[in-house]
């Protein structure tokens, strides 16, 4: 089991800052795509070291799950 956390800050003007934690590689990318479709345009994106860590099977399953739910 992997723990995924998302911190979302919606500013007074409506701008949104999202911090995705615990998801790596394509799983992280899947969350990013899902949230950008949900909220709006990506103005800026910063990857941290965890993004580049090897994925596990759990992350691949998550990506498929998000894809299926989005259909």
């Amino acid at each position: 089991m992997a723990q995924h956390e998302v911190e979302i800050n919606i500013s007074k003007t409506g701008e949104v800052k999202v911090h995705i934690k615990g998801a790596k590689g394509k799983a992280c990318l899947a969350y990013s795509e899902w949230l950008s479709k949900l909220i709006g345009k990506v103005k800026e994106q910063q990857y941290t070291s965890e993004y580049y860590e090897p994925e596990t099977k759990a992350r691949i399953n998550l990506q498929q799950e998000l894809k299926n739910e989005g259909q």
Partner: protein
Amino acid sequence: MSTVLILAPVIISNWPVIVAAAAGAASALGFAAKQSVDETVKQGQAEIQESVEIELADSQVISEGMRTGQEIVLKRGTVELRVTRDERGRCAVCAKGVGHTKAELRQIAQEFTEKMTQCFVYNRVMSELKNKDFKVVNEEVTDDQSIRIHVRRWVD
């Protein structure tokens, strides 16, 4: 840590969802739904009533199921706000009131659209996070009026 995203919200939704966001903003900013004809309009006939309109640039109100001319009318003191769908399908907020300059009304309308956008994003995000089985760890409104949400879920 994995990634940090900065997103500019785009409001594309049907009228009931826009109404919910406008109601949230109205509540937060002390506006109330207007009851039929009121004294503001009557007074406005005798005094000069300024009016300004601003639109939410990245917005699209889906007209399906929406009656022609449908709008939300809100009031706070002598200020009246009308939230409508303009001819281009965008969400527009018109502010008018006696005893206020155009600049003041523009500021009030701007403050309302920002709060409405914040409410829209909050409602949308919370609904989708719950659909994806995220549990809310913490939720707070900070000193700068930002809404901070912290959610978590376990994945196989």
